[in-house]
């Protein structure tokens, strides 16, 4: 090997190391201390959620026989809490906090002919796993907007098939996911930049890992639209942002 090749090799190694360090450092700084918490509520008369007739798929119908599943377009708790609202920082993130990609690999499960969870928030390029816990085939058919950064795909997952490991390259709030074999199955994947959260059945959420600063928080609900609020996160002190969506 000539000396020239050795220099090239050494230089390449150095560049690789530097790149690796850069990638690692973003991950480290993304795990900041700040938090944004709050609850999302619904006022007015919640829309009627129709029970779903799953007679087409006898297994799923039997599974839910005692407690029929209803549509999940607006899921309101007894105290007016609103479930399945996506919260993310739409303005104010900069640098490493904005480009950070969570290393968590959330699961998008098909169980009892429903998506578990109904709504999922992800970073762009964050990997997630699609699994099928039913003894029947489902087809996963996400429908991102045409012309955006994401491409539509449509794949079946027979029972017992290995999980599908994939990600979305572009931000999009939100990509509808359908199963054509069971047309009532639908859910959303919100692909955003930086830290995010989805409200639980009490309407509560926590966006963690937010570095101190001023931000705009956006709340998105699949049929009620979006709302925004400005918050300031100080070191060691969580900011609060509560939202209220009004019905008709």
């Amino acid at each position, binding site marked *: 090997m000539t000396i020239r090749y050795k220099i090239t090799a050494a230089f390449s190694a150095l560049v690789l190391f530097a790149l690796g360090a850069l990638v690692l450092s973003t991950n480290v700084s993304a795990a900041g201390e700040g938090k944004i918490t709050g609850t999302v509520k619904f006022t007015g008369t919640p829309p009627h959620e129709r029970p779903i007739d799953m007679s087409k798929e006898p297994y799923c119908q039997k599974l839910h026989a005692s407690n029929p599943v209803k549509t999940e377009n607006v899921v309101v708790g007894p105290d007016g809490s609103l479930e399945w609202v996506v919260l993310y920082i739409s303005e104010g993130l900069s640098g490493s906090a904005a480009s950070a990609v969570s290393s968590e690999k959330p699961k998008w499960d098909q169980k009892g002919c429903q998506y578990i969870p109904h709504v999922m928030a992800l970073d762009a390029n964050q990997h997630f796993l699609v699994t099928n816990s039913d003894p029947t085939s489902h087809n996963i*058919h996400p429908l991102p907007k045409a012309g955006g950064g994401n491409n539509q795909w449509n794949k*079946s997952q*027979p029972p*017992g*098939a290995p999980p*599908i490991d994939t990600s979305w390259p572009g931000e999009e709030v939100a990509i509808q996911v359908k199963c054509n074999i069971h047309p009532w199955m639908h859910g959303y994947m919100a692909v955003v930049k930086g830290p995010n959260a989805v409200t639980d059945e009490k309407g509560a959420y926590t966006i963690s890992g937010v570095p101190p600063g001023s931000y705009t928080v956006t709340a998105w609900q699949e049929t009620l639209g979006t709302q925004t609020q400005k918050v300031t996160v100080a070191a060691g002190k969580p900011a609060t942002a509560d939202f209220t969506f009004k019905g008709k």
Partner: protein
Amino acid sequence: MHDMHVPAVHHHAPPQGFIRKHVFSLDHKVIGEQYYGLALLAVLIGMVLSWIMRLHLGWPTLSIPGLQLLSKNGAPGGIPTPEYYLQLMTMHGTFMVFFVLTTAPFAGFGNYFLPIQVGAEDMPFPHFNMMSFWVTFVAFVVALAAFFVPDGPPLSGWTGYAPLSALGAVAGPGQGLGQVLWAASLAIFCVGQLLGSLNFISTTLDMRCKGMSMMRLPLTVWAWFITSAMGLTAFAVLMPACILLILDHVAGTSFFVASNLVVNDQLQPHSGGSTLLWQHLFWFFGHPEVYVAIVPGMGVVSHVLITNMRRPMLSHRVLIYSMAALAFLSYMVYGHHMFVSGMNPFSSIVFSFPTLAITIPSTIIVLIWIGSLYGAKLRINSASLFALGFISLFVSGGVSGFFLAQPSLDILLHATYFVVGHFHFTMAIAAIFGIFAGTYFWFSKVTGRMMNETLGKIHFWFTFVGAYSIFMPFHYLGIAGNVRRYQAFVDDYLQPLLGVHKFITVAALVTGAAQLIFLYNLIYSRFRGPKAPQNPWEATSLEWTIPSPPPFDNFGGKLPVVYHDPYQYGIEASSGDYVMQDSPEQVQTVHDEK
């Protein structure tokens, strides 16, 4: 008819160099071999696809070893997904119908033997002939390419019903680029067939040697001639249909897509097209196509049988007229594919009568075959066994036509395995038997070597019993209401029938594996088989008057003169019980019986 114009003999030298001799050859014989080779490749692929489908139907949870390597998306963990099953099914049908059943018996044997049997040294348009093969090859590559695009081949079946086939990727995996490639492949294929048909027709009409009147043409030539006439009109309809389908994909037209369709909750940007238009165009091609697949087989089987029965058919003319009647009627019956399609129910009745009427020429053909066996001196060999098997299978497929010709019974049987059994018997397995009969019969002429008869007979028994074991139970399943094109039988109704599916799968695997015997025989005999005499079957037609393999210009620069009808057997001549077509010997010849 005897004083016809005889084309002058051109003495051209055989081509030099590998490319001109074996790749871009103008020689009809090489082109015939190329078509046969293409069919062999396509049938192997098609058979493997059917094995995967059968395995999955019999054992739905079975992980098929190695399948995930073939398609990671299509078979995660080796279990085919619903869409992958349909994609395999679509490509199985496409490869088999177009690249096997149309190419081998028609373009393969026809190219090789039609010019020799009419006494010509080549076709009138050798460049068109070369083009027809290479265009067909391009069509094959384009169809194959559909496997390698991201979403894979289309899943809409070999019939490609619109609007599923016209809406694009939104309608399902493979319905985007895969479907466009499929339509492009068929459109290109049509070009090849049109060029080929043109050559066949002009060879038959213009290139016959001195003394070869139309009625002195062997039944094979008649079959290819009739098939060409069908091909010319049928493929001329499929090609524009495929082009319109491609336009619906790429140019935003709506030939086959109606207004206000909603797929995945998205209103489709199409309006004013017609769903049934595609079906009319496709089946106007599709039904004659069935006869394009089977009529050459009838010609080959007649030719092989006559030679081995040592007697001509009871009536040469009646057979020819019946084949022509089949071809003619085939255009008037296509609507029987559409009885429950939503077309005017009155049309169903109108289409049902010509469909029933087509039984008459088919029956005449079968009766002439069987009637001619009476008093014959049948020689049993691989070729004649396959020819006899063809008759048996064609009868079995024909009688199920009684049911499907009736709209009222189509209500019960349409889109069930009964239909699958019906068309596999007639156009698929019977036509394949025709190919086998022709191969065992003509192999020595093409290669100059004999095939192994023992292996040939073993191959026959496996294939004959196997074909019945596979396709007869399909009819039972259909009668019981087993719907076709299902990748799994998820409902309680079909569960009890799973045992029958398992049986069919085992039969299909065994029968398929037995084809390796044929493949071995074909390849081994090609290189190691015993040297063949010029006329091993003591046959009369012109191909047996020349050396094996035939020289470049077939007749060594001197065109033959024909003195007799093609099948002068069962007589007393100097050579034995037959007299060659080109023999000037004056003997008491046989004529059609009344």
